[in-house]
């Protein structure tokens, strides 16, 4: 019997169509894929860091330590979740839950291949941007509720940093959007079937990657959790699974950012020989590798330099780039 013929379900299907099915399956896939992916990325990060620093990285659990992060996750699950005294209990509890919401929702409009997309939306790009702002709110909540000066400084830094870097991020995205005249992810990718946008918009691509690095609070813009001055920044007081939720969100945001960059600039699923999904994954992981590589190469910026870099370098260049794009498009 077809499940769609059942009463109630039939009504729901009549209302929403097969999109519901796609959404349910997609969300299930995401729920499985996100933690596993994060576990893999943490391992990759440790391996990259290790090999850059002339050491092998984790080696003990499993061959070449591939099970290390799973074991770590089990350890974190088993840890006591300490709530320090004098904290704002509700916010302290809510912040790590809220931080993973954008990390999950952000996957919805991304088109991994011509057929793999949970929900096609005509504002897909904007949806990701607007949801990514929620993670800042949760960082602020975490920092504020921890009742710890390090956390508070980290949270305040996070807000200022994200406000500043969202502008060049959106401006560089706009350069692509006015070329394709759409916010739909799949249409943006389809527009790059012959030439990738990175060739038309190299400056925008670089600005996009820099700004997303800053949005994800990755080095050299990791002032939110700058461990040499703020110990661990906004999640200093978090332990156990709550801490690992922040970790999960950070790495998932990285993947979403890399997927965005792939869609916007690197031609999405287009590439020779392999099927689209494989190309997409290769491109995403290459970008993530670059971000990790950068992290283990550069020192951290100071806060005023970070803001100066956004307002005095990235935003003017992004604006000029947008202007030139607009003029060129108009002339053509």
């Amino acid at each position, binding site marked *: 019997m077809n499940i769609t013929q059942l009463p109630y379900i039939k009504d729901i299907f009549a209302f929403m169509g097969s999109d519901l099915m796609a959404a349910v399956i997609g969300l299930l896939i995401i729920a499985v894929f996100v933690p596993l992916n994060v576990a893999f990325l943490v391992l990759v990060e440790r391996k990259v860091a290790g*090999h850059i620093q002339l050491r092998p990285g984790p080696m003990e659990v499993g061959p070449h330590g591939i099970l290390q992060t799973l074991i770590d996750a089990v350890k974190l699950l088993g840890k006591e979740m300490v709530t320090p005294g004098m904290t704002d209990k509700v916010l302290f509890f809510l912040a790590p839950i809220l931080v993973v919401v954008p990390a999950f929702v952000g996957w919805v409009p991304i088109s991994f291949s011509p057929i793999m997309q949970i929900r096609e939306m005509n504002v897909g790009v904007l949806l990701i941007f607007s949801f990514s702002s929620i993670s800042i709110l949760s960082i602020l909540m975490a920092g504020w509720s921890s009742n710890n000066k390090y956390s508070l400084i980290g949270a305040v830094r996070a807000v200022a940093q994200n406000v500043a870097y969202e502008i060049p991020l959106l401006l560089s995205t706009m350069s692509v959007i006015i070329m394709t005249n759409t916010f739909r992810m799949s249409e943006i990718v389809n527009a790059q079937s012959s030439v990738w946008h990175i060739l038309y918009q190299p400056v925008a691509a670089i600005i996009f990657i820099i700004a997303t690095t800053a949005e994800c609070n990755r080095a050299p813009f990791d002032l939110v959790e700058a461990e040499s001055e703020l110990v661990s920044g906004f999640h200093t007081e978090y332990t156990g699974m709550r801490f690992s939720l922040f970790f999960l969100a950070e790495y998932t945001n990285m993947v979403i950012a890399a997927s965005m960059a792939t869609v916007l600039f690197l031609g999405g699923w287009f590439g020779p020989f392999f099927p689209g999904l494989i190309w997409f994954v290769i491109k995403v992981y290459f970008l993530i590798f670059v971000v990790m590589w950068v992290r283990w190469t*550069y020192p951290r910026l100071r806060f005023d330099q970070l803001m100066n870099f956004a307002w005095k370098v990235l935003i003017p260049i992004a604006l000029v780039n947008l202007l030139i794009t607009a003029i060129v498009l108009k002339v053509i």
Partner: protein
Amino acid sequence: MKTSNGFILYIQEILTGAKSLAVGLWITLKRLFSPIVTVQYPRKKLTMTPNFRGHIEAIRFDDTKTHHCVACGLCARICPSHVIKVQGEKTKAGDKKIGRHYVIDFSKCSHCGLCVDVCPEQTLKFSREYELVYYSRWDTVIDLMQRLEERP
């Protein structure tokens, strides 16, 4: 004039900065593929240098088939941490004293080597053991003479 100068400097700074960052990435990329220098310790072990200073050990001499300790106590006296106790006895009157017990608590030893230096009979040396982990603090108290007998 001045503003254009400032603008040129601004562009220059961005370009030189970008170049320096690219060079940095190149250097780390090279190291990413260079061989690893660390040793996976419990699996692999480094060979100890012959001069390694572990805790002290009595030397077995060929002429007497045992140590030369005369229990003079100089090592016990010079030890900065006072961790050495020596006990000797005379087999008969007028004979030389012979060390019977030489007890050292090397958990408090700072491995300075003063006892080896000061020994008039030069019957002390450093062991080359470095994996000195025990379950009890009393396990670190050892009798060198007993160890010497047990040693092949």
